[in-house]
Structures are given as structure tokens and as C-alpha cells.
């Protein structure tokens, strides 16, 4: 007769409902930042096609395809330019507001209060 084994404590992080918007927001920001970095590919390709067009007149049609792609992607890049700062600042400001509220709650809850029970 051996003692029952203790229930293993899960180490999986628990995401509370109040933190879910921040998790979603930070994942969104990471994706948007990766898109901003990845969009630099257009700048690098523009260097290539500028040099290639200067060397090889027959590459005109392929260069035109690239410039058309870059122009089509330009509105998306501009949207990213507006969206990324807004998301980042909103996330940090939201964290600041939530932290302030949590601190005020911790201040209001005093151990001498009858509503606060010791663990």
C-alpha cells in the first residue's frame, strides 16, 4: 500500500481572459512587424531590376512585372506604416492603464479588510 502520487501540476501557462486581448495584440504586432521587414524585399529587388534594366534591354518586360508588383503592394505597405505604430502604442498604453488599475486595486485591498482573506 503506497501513498497516492500527487497530482502533477500543469506547467502550461494559463492565459486569463483579461490578458487575452493583449496576447492577440502582441501576436498581431509581431506579424505586422514581420511584414514590414519582409516588405523590404521590394526595395532590394528594385535595386536588382534597376541594374538589370541598365545592362540588358531585353529584360524590360520582366522588370515591368516587378514594378507592377511593387506598385500593387504599395498601398499595403502604406497601411502597414500607419497600422504598426498605432498597434504598438495602443498595446503599451493599454498595459499602462491595466497596470495602473491593478495597482489601485492592490492598494484598496488591505489585509486588515474583512473582505480580504489570507491564503
Amino acid at each position, binding site marked *: 500500500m503506497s501513498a497516492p502520487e500527487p497530482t502533477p501540476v500543469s506547467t502550461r501557462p494559463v492565459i486569463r481572459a483579461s490578458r487575452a486581448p493583449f496576447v492577440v495584440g502582441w501576436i498581431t504586432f509581431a506579424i505586422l512587424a514581420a511584414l*514590414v521587414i519582409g516588405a523590404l524585399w521590394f526595395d*532590394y529587388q*528594385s*535595386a536588382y531590376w*534597376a541594374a538589370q534594366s541598365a545592362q540588358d534591354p531585353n529584360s524590360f518586360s520582366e522588370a515591368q512585372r516587378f514594378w507592377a508588383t511593387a506598385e500593387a503592394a504599395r498601398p499595403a505597405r502604406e497601411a502597414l506604416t500607419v497600422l504598426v*505604430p498605432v498597434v504598438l502604442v495602443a498595446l503599451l498604453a493599454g498595459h499602462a492603464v491595466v497596470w495602473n488599475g491593478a495597482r489601485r486595486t492592490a492598494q484598496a485591498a488591505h489585509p486588515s479588510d474583512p473582505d480580504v482573506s489570507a491564503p
Partner: protein
Amino acid sequence: MNVDPRYAAQFQRGYDPREQGAVDATGAVAPATAPPADDATPASDAAGAPATRAPLPVGDPPAASPFARPSAASSTSASAPASAPRADLTRPSSAAAPAYPAAPAADPVAPRSGSPIPVRVAVGPDDVLDEADELDRLGASGPAPWRNPFVIALAIVSVVALVTAIALSMHSYALIADTGYGYDSDRDADGGAMVWAFFLSQAAPNLAAPLYGVGVLGAASTVALLVALRRR
């Protein structure tokens, strides 16, 4: 300037609450009717205060007051002559002899007169417990409210983004204006350096634009948060 001699003598002597009848049965000075003893402006005192004060007692001289000046302790009657040396007590700039004995240098906060001034402070056990509670509360409350780590992070991110954006702009300007990649460019330059210069001149504006956005938006939000979180 015509002043009632009764009031003039009172002004020269200084304010004594006992003369005004502003004492309770136990002899302590009632705090509600006791104005500040030393009025720095005699003009306003002569103008407004006598109308609100009670008339001077005309009977027996009142008992010795703890608020009376030491040199006036022997004669506190209301009819004291105003030409006494203590007439200059309210004017520190006059050349009269010092009214108070000099305090010993070792203890500058010691009472100057021999008689101690009675002071009653209402402190009960409930007040002491409240003070301890308040100290506990202050100790457990953590850092000051303006030390919000996320506001600090936002400020740092904003400043770094703004500096980086300005540096990128200046660098791309230098690349385009000085080295160049067009008609006036250095044709003998290294090909890799040319590609890098071209890439950076194209990419720097696209990188600097969101950085400018973070810098400006973050700085404005930092100020707004500092104001808003401080007020609430």
C-alpha cells in the same frame, strides 16, 4: 491716524486671548476664537480686527496668561502705557532692546521664557491605531503611482524610434546626395557597395515612416498617460 487708545495699548502689547474672554472654563484657550498671535501687518490689524473682537474687560485685571510676553508678565492691565520699551515688540526693525532673553546656543529650540507653554494635543488610542494603519497602508502600497513601468517603456520606445527615424533619414539623404547612384555616381565604386547604397536609399524611407509614427504617437501618448493616470 486716530486709533482708540484702548486698542492702541492692546496692539502695542500684542494679542492676548485671555483679555478677550476667549477662554473656556478650565482656562485653556478656545481654539476657534484664537486668531494668530503675531500679526505681521499692523495696518490690517488696526483696520479690520477691532470690529470683530469683544470689548475689553473693564473689571479686575485678568490672570497671568501663558501667551503674555515675559517682560509684560508683571503688568497685564489694559491701561498700560504704550510708551513702554515693549511697545516696539511688534517692530523688529526698531532699535529697541531685545524683549526676549537670548536662547542658549546649545539648545536653539528651547522655550525662551522660564514658564513652559501648556499645549494640549488631542491624541487618543484610536488616533494612534489610525496612524499605524496608515503607515501599514503606505508601506504595502508599493512604488509611487507615476512609476508605471509601461509608461516608462513607452517613453523609451518613443525616443529610440524617433532617434532611429531621424538617423535613417539623415543617412539616406547623405547616400542620395553625396554618393549617389545615378548620372553623377562613382562608376568605379565597388558593386556591392553600390547595391547596398541603392537598397538603403530605397529602404530607409520605408523604414523611417513607421518609426516616425511610433515616435510621435508614443510621445503624445506618454504625455497623455502621465496626465491621465496622475489625475485619477
